[in-house]
C-alpha cells in the first residue's frame, strides 16, 4: 500500500558496529536521518557513559565558538551562512579543530585584553582632559560668583577662593590671611586649603554629595560639572555618563576622609596642578598622549577586526561540525558495549523500505573508517509498538501537521492527511465563499509559494509569519477553493457577476418598477425555464426581500449534504482499518451497524432533499407545484418520532413518493435495531471467546509465548495487548455506542456551521459594502474623488483585516474542528508516537534556534 495512506512499516533492528567504525557509521546515519536509536542504558548517569569526555570536549569547543560569535556580533561583522552542511569530521580532526579554536580564542582574548588596557588608559586620559578643562572653569568663575553671593560676612571664604584662584601668590596670601586664620580656627593649625579633583558616575553623584556632607560635617566644598559626551566603559563597552567634581577641604584628616569616600564611591581621582600654567601644560601633554593612544587603539581594533573577519567566514561551518560531532557522541552513548569491547550494539527503529539505503550508508561508513568487518543489521522480533512515520514532502507536510496536532496516528492506522488535502480547503471554502476574498488569499499563498526558497532561507523568529509560511500550500488551496465557491455563490466582495446573463426577465413596465418598492417575479412567466449555467443566478443580487431566505435554504441543505457524505466517508475509512488489522468482530458488529444507522437515517434525509429538488417546481402542476413542497426537517422529525404528518393543503399529497411511509417506518426500526448490535455484540462475543479459551489450556496446555505468537502472527509486528477486564470492555463499548449515536445527530447538526459562517461572511461583506464603500461611490464631482480615495482605503483595510484575516481564521478553525471532531472521530485513534529519527539537519536546526533564543 502506498505510504501516503498509512504510516510506514517499521522494524526494530539490532546493529552491531565495530568500535572503530562506529563513529563513521553513525555519522552516515545522521546524514541520512532515517534511524531512531533507543537508549540501551537508561540507568546510567549522564556523566558515567562511555563517550562523556568527547561530549565534554565538544561542549568546550561550542563555548569557544559562542565566545567568538559574541565578539563577532559585537563588532557587527556579517557571518557567512552558506546553508551548506559539511560532513562530520573524523575524530582525529577534532584535535585540529580544538587547536584552531584554542588559538583563536587565546588570540582574541589577548587582543581584547590589550584593547581593554588601552581603552582604560584612554578613558583615564579623557577624564583627565575633562577635569583640566572643567576645573579651569571652576577656578575662573568661582571668584566673581562667590563674591557676589556670599556678601560680607563670608569674606574669609572669598579669600580662600582668591587664594585658590591665584596660587602663584600663595605665600603672600597665606601671610595676608595669617592673622584672620588664627582667629577663625584653632591656633597653630595651618590654613592651607587642599583640593582633590576626580570623575564619578553621574547617577552616584547625589549620594556621594550627601555622604561627603555628612561624613565631613559640611566642611568641604564640592563643585561638579557634567561631561556632556558619554564615555566608554572599557570592561564591557557600555556608554556611561560621568561628572567631573572638585572638592575643597582643609586639613589632612579631612583629606583622608574625602579620599576614602571617593574610593568608596569608585570615583577616580586625578592629580590636578594648582597653577594655571601647569594645568595648561599638562592639558597639552594629555592631548598629545590621547592622539598617540588613538593611533595605537586604531591599530589594535584593526587587528581584532581582521581576526574576527577571518573567523566569521568559517564560524557557521564550525558550529555545524561541532554540533555534528556532539550529536554522534551523544548517540554513541546510547549504545551498549559488547562483552569483548570489540563492538557496539545499538537498537533502532527503521522504516522497512529504507533498510537497503541504511545498509548502503553503513557500508560507506565502514569503508571510510577503513575497517574490515562489515556492520551487521539484524531485524528483531518485538511486541512493542513501533513509532509512526509518515513520509511527507513540502506540500503534504502542513496537512500532516494538522492531523498530528490532534494526535499522532496509531501505528499503521489509516492516515486522514491525504483526504484532508482536498476536504480541508473545500469545507473552508464553503464558509469563506467569495471570489474577491478568495483571490486575495490565493494570491498571498501563491506569492509565498513562488518565493519559497528565498523566504525559507531568511529564517525569522516571527512565530506568526512562520505559521503562515508553513501553511502556504494550505492557504493557496483555501484561496483557490474559495474562488470557486465564490463563483458558485456568485459573490465577489458581496456583489454578483452577470457573466452569462440572468435567466430571469422582467415583464413589468417602467412606471410600475419606479412606483413599487417590492415587485415579485413570477417563475411561470419571467423565468426562461433553464437554470443559469454556473452557480447562482445574478438576479438574486437585487432581490432585497428574499435573497437571504433563498440562500439559507440552499446553503443549509448543501451543508447537511456535504456533512453526511463526509461522515459516511469517515465510517468507510474505519472499514479499511478493521480489514487491515483483521478485526472481524469490529467490522461485523461495529462498522456495519454504524454504516446502516447513518445511511438509513441521515443519508435518507439527503436523498429526500434531492427528491424535493427534482420533483417540485413552480412550473409543475398541482401535486408537484412549489406550494405543495413539504418541509424536509418536519418530515424527518415526523419519521423519527412516528408522528402522523399534518393534513396537506388542498390538492397536495402528504408524501413525496409511493410507499414513503412504509419505507420510513422500516428505516427507523432497522436503524434503532442497530443500536443494541453496536452496544452488545462485540463484548458478548469476546466474553464467549474467553470462556472457550479458558477451557482450552486444560486440553492443550499452551504456553503464554505460543498464544502470544499466534495472536501477533496475524498482524505484522502487532501490539501485545494486555487482557482487558470484561467490565471495562462493556463500559467502553457503551461509551462508544452512545457517542456514535448521539454524535451522528449532533455532528450532522454541527455541519450547519458551514451555512452559518457562510451567511455571516456574506452579510459582513455586504454591510461593509453598503455602509462604507457605497458612501464613497455616491459622492459627486472632484470632491467625490478625494472622498472615494479615503473611503476606499478604509474599505480595503477592513476587507483585508476583518474579512480575509479574521473571518479566514475563524473559518479555518471551524474547518479544523469539522475534521478533528466530526470526521476523525469516526475512525481515527491517534494513540501512536512519532518517529524521531537521528538526523543532523534537525539537530543543527534546533541548535541554531536555541542559540537564537538565548
Amino acid at each position, binding site marked *: 500500500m502506498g505510504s501516503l495512506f498509512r504510516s510506514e512499516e517499521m522494524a526494530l533492528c539490532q546493529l552491531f558496529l565495530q568500535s572503530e567504525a562506529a563513529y563513521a557509521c553513525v555519522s552516515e546515519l545522521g546524514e541520512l536521518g532515517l534511524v531512531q536509536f533507543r537508549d540501551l542504558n537508561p540507568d546510567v*548517569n*549522564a556523566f558515567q557513559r562511555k563517550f562523556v569526555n568527547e*561530549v565534554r570536549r565538544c561542549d568546550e569547543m561550542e563555548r569557544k565558538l559562542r565566545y567568538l560569535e559574541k565578539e563577532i556580533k559585537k563588532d557587527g561583522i556579517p557571518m557567512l551562512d552558506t546553508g551548506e552542511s559539511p560532513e562530520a569530521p573524523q575524530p582525529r580532526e577534532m584535535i585540529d579543530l580544538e587547536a584552531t579554536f584554542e588559538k583563536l580564542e587565546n588570540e582574541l582574548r589577548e587582543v581584547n585584553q590589550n584593547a581593554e588596557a588601552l581603552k582604560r588608559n584612554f578613558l583615564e586620559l579623557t577624564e583627565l582632559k575633562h577635569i583640566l578643562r572643567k576645573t579651569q572653569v571652576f577656578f575662573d568663575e568661582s571668584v566673581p560668583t562667590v563674591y557676589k553671593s556670599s556678601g560680607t560676612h563670608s569674606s574669609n571664604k572669598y579669600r580662600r577662593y582668591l587664594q585658590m584662584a591665584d596660587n602663584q601668590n600663595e605665600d603672600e596670601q597665606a601671610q595676608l590671611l595669617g592673622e584672620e586664620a588664627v582667629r577663625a580656627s584653632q591656633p597653630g593649625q595651618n590654613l592651607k586649603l587642599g583640593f582633590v579633583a576626580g570623575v564619578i558616575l553621574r547617577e552616584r553623584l547625589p549620594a556621594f554629595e550627601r*555622604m561627603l556632607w555628612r561624613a565631613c560635617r559640611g566642611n568641604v566644598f564640592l563643585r561638579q560639572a557634567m561631561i556632556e559626551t558619554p564615555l566608554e566603559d572599557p570592561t564591557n563597552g557600555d556608554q556611561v555618563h560621568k561628572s567631573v567634581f572638585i572638592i575643597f577641604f582643609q586639613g589632612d584628616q579631612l583629606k583622608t576622609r574625602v579620599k576614602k569616600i571617593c*574610593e*568608596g*564611591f569608585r570615583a577616580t581621582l586625578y592629580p590636578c596642578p594648582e597653577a594655571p600654567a601647569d594645568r595648561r601644560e599638562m592639558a597639552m601633554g594629555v592631548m598629545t598622549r590621547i592622539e598617540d593612544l588613538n593611533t595605537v587603539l586604531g591599530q589594535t581594533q584593526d587587528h581584532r577586526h581582521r581576526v574576527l573577519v577571518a573567523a566569521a567566514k568559517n564560524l557557521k561551518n564550525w558550529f555545524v561540525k561541532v554540533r555534528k560531532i556532539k550529536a554522534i557522541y551523544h548517540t554513541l552513548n546510547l549504545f551498549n558495549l559488547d562483552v569483548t569491547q570489540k563492538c557496539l550494539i545499538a537498537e533502532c527503529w527503521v522504516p522497512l523500505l529504507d533498510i537497503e539505503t541504511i545498509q548502503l550508508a553503513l557500508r560507506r561508513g565502514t569503508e571510510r573508517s577503513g575497517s574490515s568487518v562489515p556492520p551487521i543489521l539484524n531485524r528483531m522480533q518485538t511486541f512493542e509498538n513501533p513509532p509512526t512515520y509518515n513520509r511527507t514532502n513540502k506540500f503534504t507536510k502542513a496537512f500532516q501537521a494538522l492531523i498530528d496536532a490532534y494526535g499522532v496516528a496509531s501505528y499503521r492506522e489509516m492516515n486522514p492527511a491525504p483526504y484532508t488535502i482536498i476536504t480541508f480547503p473545500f469545507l473552508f471554502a464553503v464558509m469563506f465563499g467569495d471570489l474577491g476574498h478568495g483571490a486575495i488569499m490565493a494570491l498571498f499563498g501563491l506569492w509565498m509559494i513562488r518565493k519559497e526558497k528565498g523566504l525559507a532561507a531568511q529564517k525569522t523568529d516571527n512565530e506568526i509569519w512562520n505559521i503562515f509560511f508553513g501553511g502556504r500550500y494550505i492557504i493557496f488551496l483555501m484561496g483557490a477553493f474559495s474562488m470557486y465557491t465564490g463563483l458558485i455563490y456568485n459573490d465577489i466582495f458581496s456583489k454578483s457577476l452577470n457573466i452569462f446573463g440572468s435567466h430571469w426577465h422582467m415583464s413589468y413596465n417602467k412606471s410600475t418598477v419606479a412606483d413599487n418598492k417590492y415587485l415579485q417575479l413570477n417563475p411561470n412567466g419571467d423565468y426562461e425555464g433553464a437554470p443559469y449555467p454556473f452557480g447562482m443566478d445574478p438576479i438574486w443580487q437585487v432581490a432585497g426581500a428574499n435573497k437571504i431566505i433563498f440562500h439559507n435554504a440552499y446553503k443549509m441543505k448543501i451543508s447537511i449534504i456535504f456533512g453526511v457524505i463526509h461522515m459516511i466517508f469517515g465510517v468507510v475509512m474505519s472499514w479499511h482499518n478493521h480489514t487491515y488489522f483483521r478485526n472481524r468482530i469490529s467490522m461485523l458488529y461495529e462498522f456495519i451497524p454504524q454504516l446502516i444507522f447513518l445511511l438509513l437515517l441521515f443519508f435518507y434525509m439527503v436523498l429526500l432533499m434531492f427528491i424535493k429538488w427534482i420533483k417540485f417546481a413552480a412550473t409543475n402542476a398541482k401535486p408537484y407545484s412549489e406550494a405543495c413542497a413539504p418541509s424536509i426537517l418536519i418530515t424527518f422529525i415526523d419519521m423519527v418520532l412516528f408522528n402522523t404528518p399534518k393534513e396537506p393543503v388542498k390538492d397536495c399529497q402528504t408524501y413525496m413518493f409511493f410507499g414513503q411511509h412504509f419505507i420510513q417506518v422500516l428505516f427507523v426500526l432497522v436503524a434503532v435495531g442497530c443500536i443494541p448490535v453496536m452496544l452488545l455484540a462485540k463484548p458478548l462475543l469476546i466474553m464467549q471467546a474467553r470462556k472457550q479459551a479458558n477451557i482450552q489450556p486444560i486440553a492443550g496446555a499452551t504456553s503464554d509465548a505460543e498464544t502470544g505468537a499466534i495472536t501477533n502472527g496475524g498482524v505484522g509486528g502487532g501490539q501485545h495487548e494486555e487482557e482487558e477486564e470484561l467490565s471495562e470492555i462493556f463500559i467502553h463499548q457503551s461509551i462508544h455506542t452512545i457517542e456514535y449515536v448521539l454524535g451522528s445527530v449532533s455532528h450532522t447538526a454541527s455541519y450547519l456551521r458551514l451555512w452559518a459562517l457562510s451567511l455571516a461572511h456574506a452579510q459582513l461583506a455586504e454591510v461593509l459594502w453598503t455602509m462604507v464603500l457605497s458612501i464613497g461611490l455616491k459622492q459627486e464631482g472632484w470632491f467625490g474623488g478625494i472622498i472615494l480615495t479615503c473611503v476606499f482605503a478604509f474599505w480595503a483595510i477592513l476587507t483585508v483585516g476583518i474579512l480575509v484575516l479574521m473571518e479566514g481564521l475563524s473559518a479555518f478553525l471551524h474547518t479544523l474542528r469539522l475534521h478533528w471532531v466530526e470526521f476523525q472521530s469516526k475512525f481515527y485513534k491517534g494513540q501512536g508516537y512519532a518517529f524521531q529519527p537521528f538526523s543532523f539537519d534537525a539537530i543543527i536546526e534546533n541548535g541554531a534556534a536555541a542559540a537564537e533564543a538565548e
Partner: protein
Amino acid sequence: MNSSGFMFNVDNGYLEGLCRGFKCGILKQADYLNLVQCETLEDLKLHLQGTDYGSFLANEPSPLSVSVIDDKLREKLVIEFQHMRNHAVEPLSNFLDFITYGYMIDNIILLITGTLHQRPISELIPKCHPLGSFEQMEAIHVASTPAELYNAVLVDTPLAPFFVDCISEQDLDEMNIEIIRNTLYKAYLEAFHNFCKNMGGATADVMCEILAVSGCSSSCIGISLNFPLSRLQFEADRRAIIITINSFGTELSKDDRAKLYPNCGKMYPDGLAALARADDYEQVKTVAEYYAEYAALFDGSGNNPGDKTLEDKFFEHEVKLNVYAFLQQFHFGVFYAYLKLKEQECRNIVWIAECVAQKHRAKIDNYIPIF
C-alpha cells in the same frame, strides 16, 4: 480583613505562582544521589545541566573551580529574587526588602571587620552578598566609631532605625562588632516580626493569637501571617541559643548577653530569662528541653565524629519549616522560604563540589536534603 484569600492573587498571585514554579526546580534527593557520585567538577557541571540550572556554567572556561560554581549559583538565585522584587507591589515589596536587610547587616559587619584587619575595601566588596548591597556600602571604612558609622553611612539606609541602639558603643573592636551585629539582628528580627504581624492591620495581631489558641489556624489572616511569624520565631530562638553557646568563654557579661536576645521568639520571655542565666552547654540544653521542637535538636547533636553539629540540626529544622511553608497558600512566607531553601541548596552543592574537588569523599553525604 478576611478577604485576604481572594484578594491575594490580585497583586501577588503571579509572583506566588512564579515562586512556586522556581521551587519545583529545587534539586531532589535523586539529584543529590547523582551529584554525590561525581568524580570531577566537570561531572557535576554535566549533571547540573540536566536540572533546572540548565546551562548556567556553559560559558565558563574549562578548569572549573568551586568558587566559580558558588558565584554562578548565587548569581542565579539573586537574579531570580531580584526579578520577583522588581515585579512586586506593596506590601510584598516591603516584605522582600525586609528579607534583604538581613544581608545588609551581614555585609556591614563583614566590611567593618575587614577594614579592622586592614584589608583594602576592593578586596572585601566581592565577598559581600549582592542582595544586601547598598549605595553607601563601599564608603563604610570612613567610620571609625559606631556613631560615625550611623551618622555618615547608615542614616540613609533602611537599617538606620535598627542601629539606634548601638550608637553608644565606644569603638569598633572585634567584640563590639559582634555585639553590634547581634543588636542589629535583634532589632531587625523584631521589626520584621512586627511588620509581619501588622500586615493585616491592627486586628490581625489579635486574630493570630485567638486562632492559635482555638487551634483552627486554617482561616483568614491567620494563614497568611502564621508562617512568616513562626519562621521568624524560630530564627529568633536560634539566634538566642547560638549567642548563648558562643558567648561561653568570652568576656561578654550575662547582662549584655541578655540584651542581644531577640524578644519575638517562642522562648520569650521565660526561656530567654533562663538562657540568660545559663553558664554552660548543659544548662542551655536544659532550657531547650522545655520546648519540644528544640529539645529534639539538642538530642541528636553532639561534637563527636559521626554526630551532627547543633548548627546542622538547626539547618535541618529550618529546611523542614521552609518546606512546610509551601503547604499553605496566600501568604508571603513562600518567598522567604524559597530564598532560604535555595541558599541551603547552594550550600549543599558547594559542599559537594568542595568534597569532589578535594577528593574528600568521606563527608560528602553531610549535605542537607530538601525534598
